[in-house]
């Protein structure tokens, strides 16, 4: 359940972000994440641990929006992009080449924050 630790890291980053707005208190409506398919993260568990982690904190009520990013590889022989999968041992269908270059799918990114400032 490493999503617990990932959520802790996320909350730490959000706390840091909040400092930038000090002394104003940002009210966060939504945090947008990008989570690649080729990571060790289960989005549902992240949503679950997020709800627990932000309870009674300044982030209470903030939603987590997770955009899944598909795994895309690029065949280094012919430059075609493809969707690597375990069933085909991640090889490129065009040239039967191993998964060398990953174009997307390794993202674990806090993309943006929707918020308002009390004034």
């Amino acid at each position: 359940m490493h999503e617990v630790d990932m959520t802790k890291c996320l909350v730490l980053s959000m706390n840091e972000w909040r400092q930038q707005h000090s002394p104003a208190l940002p009210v966060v409506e939504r945090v947008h994440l990008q989570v690649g398919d080729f990571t060790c993260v289960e989005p549902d568990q992240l949503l679950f641990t997020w709800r627990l982690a932000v309870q009674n904190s300044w982030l209470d009520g903030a939603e987590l929006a997770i955009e899944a990013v598909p795994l895309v590889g690029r065949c280094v022989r012919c430059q075609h992009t493809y969707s690597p999968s375990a069933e085909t041992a991640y090889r490129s269908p065009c040239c039967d080449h191993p998964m060398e270059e990953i174009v997307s799918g390794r993202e674990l990114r806090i993309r943006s924050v929707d918020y308002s400032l009390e004034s």
Partner: protein
Amino acid sequence: MHMPLEDTLGLNLLAANQHQAAHNREHFDAWQLLCLNVMSSPGAGKTSLLEQTLTALSSDLAMAVLEGDMTTQLDADRLEAVGVPVVPITTGRACHLDAAMVSGGLRLLGQRLDPASLDLLWVENVGNLVCPAEFEVGEHRKVALLSVTEGDDKPLKYPVMFREADCVLITKTDLLPYLPVDIERIEAHIHQVNPHCTVLRVSASSGEGLDGWHSWIRRELSAQRHQQVADPRRHGRRDSSGPDHDVVLHLVNA
């Protein structure tokens, strides 16, 4: 009045951990040592391999171990018996070491010796093929172990770990005569997800392949020392879409 606003962060989800890992690595580079993060599933033979490796290399390399374990000090006691300083890090319920835990281990290590006197710092991670792959601790190289008893499908089932590894050791090769396992298939599957990593066959029991493993360590130590002198910045990773890419942004923003 409330104004809806949006901030684009582009920050790594694990930025807090990455930040600490980068900080650890700065120390490693200042001390001019090579830090290796050793990972595998439980029982793949990390501690046995380390026992042999520490014994073989301790005559001419100064080494220390940060030993991650969930609840016990059993592995740390085994390694300490070899005569190399070991700092146990019990992670409690956490299934991996993170950069802050390693930082805590470094502080304890610093009370026992001058880390600048070390050539190699070993981090033996908690036995797990999933989580440790995502949590950098500041290492220069990742070493993954896969024992022949685990089956040839593991690199495909746990691809992130094998993708991230710089060196994969196929362990317990002395058992091959007794198992219906095709070691070439294991190697092929590792190279399917990571075509350029070093793959070595070793047995801590029979000693098979350990010379090649020791040569790899010495080669990487030498390469890292050259890099530390020429360019004291960190060792980068391959995948530009990957987690590491963002930490640079984070440090610039910090």
